[in-house]
């Protein structure tokens, strides 16, 4: 296992429009034990506004270069040396700082490289069938729509819960936006590597920047962009609810519904994987399982499977559970106890923090059974495998299934599926034995990002 030499701190500079920029007093990035592993330059607002102005001045990446460029960037991301780190060193640091199991980080590297390679075709999948790609398209001759950007500069205020959050903004870059990425302070390594890889592949410094900032300055990044993607909790969603230029990505509250016509025993693998794969930290991990029948045996089965998962440091190849600083783990454990009051605990009832003795603790899974489908707990999404198992009946209707990023519906009831498909607050519907965390390039995560970035403009060329 490669480790970073502590005597020689790793500097993560801002990647500005005129190259790397190091602040006078970079801030510490610590791993889950509290050990400093890198120093991150948080840029002041003045640097942000100047960088954003430079993005606005720069032109888009020429479409002709795009596919080759993305392919080269994907290779560099997956196997190159960027910022002095090879891919193993990079993955190790991500795992140590975010507490994400190394195997999850490793899989995410592969996945992200695939998304980078296909960013253009993914983005173009969102084009309306009635819109042409450009003025040269022969359809424009007789009056047509052309698909155009709604702005020039795109910003993303990213989260650090999973390296996979950095797949989406590539589509904006592929659609001709200039992009500013504000990384999570906890896990800045992935966006640093991705921006570095794209620059190595030929994206100019003034077309793509990495702007680490404190929380307040992050608002400046968002405000100076034409379109912005912002990750956060319910507070962030509420803050930007009325801002048409901001697309908030909030809690996923992904769920599984199993109706009486389905034998859940045939699908335990998928259910458990939906809860706990990816370390249980992604918005596509299942938060609630609703079952048309007595949920107790199902909860018991999930708990039995999850209880077998080992507690290991995140960088262990066999690790599958998330790890965080001990104090935070204890706070989360106490918080879970408060939230879970009144439910039946099948797993984690006496706490979920498992001290590793080095300042960090594993967040062990929790399984609780609620009395009803409308229990408030079902809205509670925590950053580890934590699932609420609830009874569901036809009389509950689809109300308990609302506000869901991914719903895996284990049912053959066509009418119910129609109703779920029509429900606006269910973003994605997977039918049958399909885990909630499934994603693929070209399949939208929360509608096509291009719905937010592009529009169809009528064009008539009378020449």
């Amino acid at each position, binding site marked *: 296992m490669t480790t970073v030499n502590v005597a020689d701190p790793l500097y993560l500079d801002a990647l500005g429009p005129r190259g790397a920029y190091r*602040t*006078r*007093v970079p801030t510490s990035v610590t791993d889950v034990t509290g050990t400093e592993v890198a120093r991150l330059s948080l*840029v*002041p*607002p*003045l*640097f942000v*506004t*100047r960088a954003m*102005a430079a993005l606005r001045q720069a032109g888009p990446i020429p479409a002709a270069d795009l596919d080759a460029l993305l392919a080269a960037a994907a290779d560099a991301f997956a196997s190159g040396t960027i910022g002095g780190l090879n891919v193993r060193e990079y993955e190790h640091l991500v795992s140590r700082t975010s507490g994400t199991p190394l195997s999850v980080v490793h899989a995410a590297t592969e996945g992200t490289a695939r998304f980078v390679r296909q960013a253009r075709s993914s983005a173009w999948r969102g084009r309306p069938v009635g819109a042409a790609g450009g003025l040269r398209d022969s359809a424009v001759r007789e009056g047509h729509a052309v698909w155009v950007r709604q702005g020039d500069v795109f910003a993303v205020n990213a*989260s*650090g*819960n*999973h390296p996979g959050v950095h797949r989406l903004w590539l589509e904006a870059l592929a659609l001709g936006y200039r992009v500013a990425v504000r990384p999570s302070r906890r896990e800045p390594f992935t966006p640093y590597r991705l921006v570095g890889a794209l620059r190595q592949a030929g994206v100019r410094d003034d077309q793509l920047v990495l702007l680490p900032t404190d*929380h307040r300055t992050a*608002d400046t990044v968002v*405000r100076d962009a034409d379109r912005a993607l912002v*990750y*956060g*909790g*319910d*507070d*962030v969603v509420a*803050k930007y609810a009325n801002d048409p230029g901001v697309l908030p*990505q*909030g*809690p*996923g509250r992904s769920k599984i519904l199993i109706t009486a016509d389905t034998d859940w025993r045939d699908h335990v693998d998928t259910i458990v994987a939906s809860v706990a794969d990816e370390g249980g*930290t*992604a*918005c596509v*991990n299942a938060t609630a399982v609703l079952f048309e029948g007595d949920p107790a045996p199902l909860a018991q089965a999930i708990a039995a499977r999850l209880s077998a998962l080992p507690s290991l440091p995140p960088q262990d190849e066999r690790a599958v559970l998330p790890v965080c600083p001990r104090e*935070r783990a204890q*706070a*989360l454990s106490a*918080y879970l106890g408060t939230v879970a009051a009144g439910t039946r605990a099948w797993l984690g009832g006496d706490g979920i923090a498992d001290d590793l003795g080095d300042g960090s603790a594993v967040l062990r899974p929790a399984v609780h059974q609620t009395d009803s489908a409308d229990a408030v707990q079902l809205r*509670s*999404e*925590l*950053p580890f495998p934590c699932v609420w198992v609830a009874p569901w009946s036809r009389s509950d209707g689809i109300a308990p299934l609302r506000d869901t990023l991914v719903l895996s519906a284990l049912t053959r009831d066509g009418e119910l599926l129609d109703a779920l498909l029509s429900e606006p607050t269910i973003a994605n519907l997977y039918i049958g034995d399909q885990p909630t965390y499934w994603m693929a390039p070209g399949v939208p995560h929360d509608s096509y990002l291009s719905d937010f970035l592009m529009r169809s403009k009528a064009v008539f060329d009378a020449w």
Partner: protein
Amino acid sequence: MTDELTILDAGPFDRVDPDEFVRAAMRWHFDPATGSRYWLERAARLNFDPRHDVKGVADLGLFPDLADELRGVRVADLIPRGYGSGARLLNVFDSGGTTGAPKRVIQLDDWMRHSTEQVNRRLRAHGLPDGGLWLTVAPTGPHLVGDVLQRAAAGLGSVGLSVDMDPRWVRKLVAAGRADDVDAYTDHLVDQCRRILLSQDIGVIAATTPLLERFAREDGLVEMINGSAKAIIWGGTHMDPDTRELLSTEVFPDVPVIGMYGNTLMLTALMERVGLTASEPCVFDPVSPYVFLTVVDPGTGEQVEVGERGQVVVSHVSKSMLIPNNMERDTALRVRPDEGHAGDAVADVAPVPTVKGETVIEGVY
């Protein structure tokens, strides 16, 4: 009495002994014949005798931080009786009200002369020209800083065209999360500045950090300022070292960018030490014998080592007012002061960090 009056009337460059000055000030402010009503009444509740126990600058630390009491004291009760009927009250200034109701201080004409003299002496040392027009964008009215700038301009034979700024309103907007309104207000200020810059030959620009940051977004304004201005003075709020370097080297490379640190309870402003480069810490020297700074550990109250960061404690001692041992909401690096000045100098002044506990648990992001 005659000796005391002489030393208490000393100007900022008369090189009087700071400890001697402080002793004289104690005798003045705590003598029933000369002290203010506020201090004479307050003295009864101190657990020491200022006239006996305060033997020099260091003993100002005996005083508790009484600045909060300035929120309610009547103005007349602050004027030392020793001025008699000849007291010339020029202004009553309010603090910004960051920490609640504003605190109130008085400015008598003798102090105004001393304050202006020290500011001007230091501006001249920075090479500021005599004459020409200033543009000052600063809080005026009840706020000290606008007045300091106007008088500084006048002291250099100049006149300041001013754009008023209401910091209390901005603070309310920020607190309410109304970022759009803050932007709109800032745009409003910039519009006024733009008109002045376009139509007048402005030689000196005095503005707050956010305003300069906002100017930096407009290439036209930046070009104009680089073309015509002889100096930019920033103050009123903090400026982090990275921003200072960017402004000095990238945005306004052709104009000296000079820091000013002051606040209402200091009753004046300290100018950046002459000769610093953009990459060095921005040092502010105290003004003996009137303004004494100490950089302390906020936990223990002990002075930190030179080069270490701590909280800034300010004492103002003059014939007209005494505001000892006031714990500011600023942190700074402790620096040795310029020769002849007592106490600490400060560098890289920054706001006290607000501790943001890990309250947000819910959610995966």
